């Protein structure tokens, strides 16, 4: 009897091991996969080039930041005073607050727009050059869909509402970068790069004047 029980247990273990191995080589779907919701995929649609613009931007610094933002849509209650339903012994009918908490990871690129450089901003004499550099500015704020994480979504949030929260988050991202003194750091780096470039172009004396 005991020997039969042992054989029975070994058989069960062998079957389990067989199922496991078959799942590993994808001959059998896993049990959890059968009831798992399949991911939604998108069609590989074409890319349409709408515009091609020439740029002359010298990007000298990137600031990475992670910002959190939350937004709440107030719910409503049938009774203004929460004591009324308990006094009347009826349920308090109400719609709870709707909440959206987003985490955004983005990049801010800063530098100068060299397209603003005019002929009068350059002065050359023999092996000396003098350049008036335009002031540094934020050239791009990159906050792509992959940079967003929806931490909590309670209630129904329309596309426009979510967009508004994301735009607010972007503004917060820019404000944080400005607080980190990104423009000053970008300017310092512009001076270094321009000096390096102009010296490589054969100039011995390079004077850089920052536009105020």
């Amino acid at each position: 009897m005991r020997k039969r029980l042992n054989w029975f247990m070994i058989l069960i273990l062998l079957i389990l091991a067989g199922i496991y191995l078959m799942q590993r080589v994808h001959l059998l779907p896993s049990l959890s996969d059968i009831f798992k919701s399949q991911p939604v995929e998108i069609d590989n649609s074409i890319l349409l080039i709408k515009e091609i613009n020439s740029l002359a931007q010298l990007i000298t610094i990137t600031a990475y930041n992670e910002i959190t933002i939350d937004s709440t849509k107030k719910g409503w209650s049938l009774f203004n005073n929460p004591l009324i339903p308990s006094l009347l012994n009826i349920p308090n009918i109400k719609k709870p607050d709707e909440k959206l908490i987003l985490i955004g990871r983005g990049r801010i690129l800063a530098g100068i727009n060299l397209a603003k450089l005019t002929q009068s901003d350059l002065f050359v004499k023999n092996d000396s050059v003098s350049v008036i550099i335009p002031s540094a500015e934020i050239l791009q704020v990159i906050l792509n869909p992959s940079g967003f994480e929806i931490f909590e979504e309670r209630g129904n949030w329309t596309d426009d509402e979510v967009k508004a929260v994301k735009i607010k988050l972007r503004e917060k991202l820019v404000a944080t970068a400005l607080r980190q003194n990104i423009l000053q750091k970008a300017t310092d780096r512009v001076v270094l790069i321009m000096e390096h470039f102009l010296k490589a172009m054969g100039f011995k004396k390079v004077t850089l004047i920052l536009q105020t």
Partner: protein
Amino acid sequence: MFLIKNAGFLLLTLLFFSCNKKDRQLQQILALQQMNDLATVEYVITKIIRANDNKTWYKFGDRKILMSCKATLIAGIDLVSITREQVMIEKRNIQLSLPHAKLISISIKPEDIAVEYQELDMLRQPFSAEERNELAILAENQLKTSIAELGILQTAETNATLFVSNFLTRLGYKKININFDQSKSLKD
């Protein structure tokens, strides 16, 4: 009795089957990073995001969404990799070797993603903000894989040649010869 005797073996077997190794990648990003890029071209492209949630067998009814998105791609060259060895100056003539163009950024602004159409059957829930964002991430990934086909790097190199050439003319050079560093492209 059998179970008690073979408890160790059973436990090990269970552990073996249940263990799921997940590599946790440590992500570290510098808050501020120095760059030396001269952005020379910007491509504005549009893409339609079309999805149909009909792959799960126990979910009945249609659930479709059509979104549109606009992305801005920026490409240019690394200005600091130009060293004196790559420049040959002879009086007012200059020969310069520029590094090959690279993609600097891809940007999809939140306001540039829009839901154009949604079709939902009675039994289905509307797409949540998280699901819409996931679809936009898929579109972003598709975009990243299709960059080479757009020809943005070639345009960036053409524009870089134009910009540097104009700049050198302003600096007083008469004959300017610009080419792209072949050795670097081979290394890449």
